[in-house]
């Protein structure tokens, strides 16, 4: 069984004005000039490479870190690399106010933990990059620095089934009789 409760250092995706970025599209996450890359290990270095102020994210982050993002994260194209680049870096979870529909589907299918926290961008001031966040996938409970609590939407059964199996295809194999 994979862990359903994790703890990690957070990165809050804010812009030059200090506000959380909304509508971060897949070109900002993984620019189309890198779309020829199919090897997962090579994708990490380009993560957020086209988002102003975050071009050096791949150098700054560590495996186990958690990203907090605003509304409609992952809008735009269907490219799987926009999810895979974070998996390549070992990012443990991505929490956003909301996700683009295709991005959400891709993330769930690849077993990458994402959670929706309604109203997150309004509360952005309460989170600082470097804070420690505890995340419970089963209950959606978030604990900030062991002090404050927030309620995100918990994993659905679908999400947990696929996450535990590894990815959508691996889950398909568990159904074989």
């Amino acid at each position, binding site marked *: 069984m994979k862990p359903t409760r994790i703890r990690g250092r957070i990165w809050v995706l804010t812009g030059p004005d200090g506000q959380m970025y909304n509508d971060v599209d897949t070109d900002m996450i993984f620019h189309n000039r890198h779309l020829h890359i199919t090897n997962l290990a090579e994708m990490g270095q380009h993560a957020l490479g086209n988002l102003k102020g975050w071009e050096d994210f791949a150098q700054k982050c560590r495996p186990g870190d958690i990203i907090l993002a605003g509304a409609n994260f992952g809008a735009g194209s*269907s490219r799987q690399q926009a999810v895979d680049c974070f998996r390549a870096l070992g990012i443990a979870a991505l929490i956003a106010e909301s996700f683009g*529909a295709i991005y*959400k*589907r891709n993330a*769930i*299918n690849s077993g990458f933990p994402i959670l929706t926290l309604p109203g997150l961008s309004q509360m952005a001031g309460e989170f600082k990059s470097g804070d420690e966040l505890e995340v419970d996938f089963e209950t959606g409970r978030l604990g900030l620095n062991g002090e404050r609590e927030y309620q995100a939407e918990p994993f*659905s*059964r*679908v*999400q947990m*089934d696929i996450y535990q199996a590894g990815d*959508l*295809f691996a889950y*398909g*194999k568990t*159904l*074989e009789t």
Partner: protein
Amino acid sequence: MPGQTVIEKIIQAHSDEEAAPGRIVWMELDVRTARDFAGANVVQNYRTHYGNSPVADASKTFFTFDCVVPAKTIPYASNQHLCRLWAREQGIRVYDVDAGIGSHVAIEEGLAYPGCTFVGTDSHLNILGAIGAFGQGMGDQDIAFAFKTGKTWFEVPPTMQVVIKGELHPPCTARDLTLAVLRELGSSGALGKAVEFTGPAIEALDLAGRITLASQITEMGGIIGFVPPSKEVLAFCRERAGREVSGVYADPDAEYCQVVEVDISNLEPLVACPPSPANVRPVRELAGTRIDSVFLGSCTNGRFEDFVAVAEVVKGEHIAPWVTASVVPATRQVYARLLREGVLETLFEAGFIVSNPGCGGCASGQIGMTGQGEVQVSTSNRNFPGKQGAGETYLASPLTAAWAALRGEIVVPG
């Protein structure tokens, strides 16, 4: 428990989880398909992950080739043949390059029926909302998984209701009604939502008109648009499916996230101008615009009734000398009826090119693309830059397109 909308009921009947809006649930699939676009990727994904193991149920799995038919390049031909060979190994039926548009074949062959769940690689598969079925286009990985397991997951969308006030009167057609809804909702008015249509004009639509309306939900950003099946539609589906079918209807106390009224009592013929299907204006305002070509067909207006409407206008006449015009019936069955009833002859004599069934101009130009500076009137579903070629495409009803072909310019029909 509050009442349920159509999509909530259909998903609920195919899931053991609560199908409430916003919830992500596993859903059993009655039918899973792939077309020639993405079909080879589905096979490749399947082989990579599941080797030579059999699909969940070959009798519920189909290929429908409709995009590049017959294949005009070797890569397309090779991709189609890869699917054919794999289908033979698996015992999967292929509706091949002669069959026509997959979503229409599904309705005609009774593969789809009211209340069923149906997925494939066609982004307009939600057209099955025309018979009250849940159709949905998905990517090649999701479809490979569906082939293997017979299920998929889906986030139950909220439902909005669109109430059509008033009735349709000639020269307005189902396409003009559809354009009126597009004008009201815009390109994102139904974003992420299921739509349910209601009103006397909706009830009066024949199957062809229902298909036209349902085919444009994608252009409003919607997941699917349901037209409650009429007695005639139920009888048709019963006969085609060879089994008892019943419609799925919303509960009277179903909860809608939004109700929108569209009044068509004073409707006039409409046209969607470049560069998007939601850029709708009255035909009247475009009258006099000189045109170069006309396309009739696609999953939006490729039915028998659509071509009959055109034939009635052009019978005994000839299209303008500077215009080229093409006809692509949606399916082999539509083609056969047009042939037997003399409609193709009328269109041919009037100067139309008649092509074999398929997706027509939408998928890499089965019947040619527009060139730089070319102005086209088309009954297809999208006019984004580049979609039908390098020219400018105006989307309109078969009637408006027929008159444009005759006069060589956009004119108000009738």
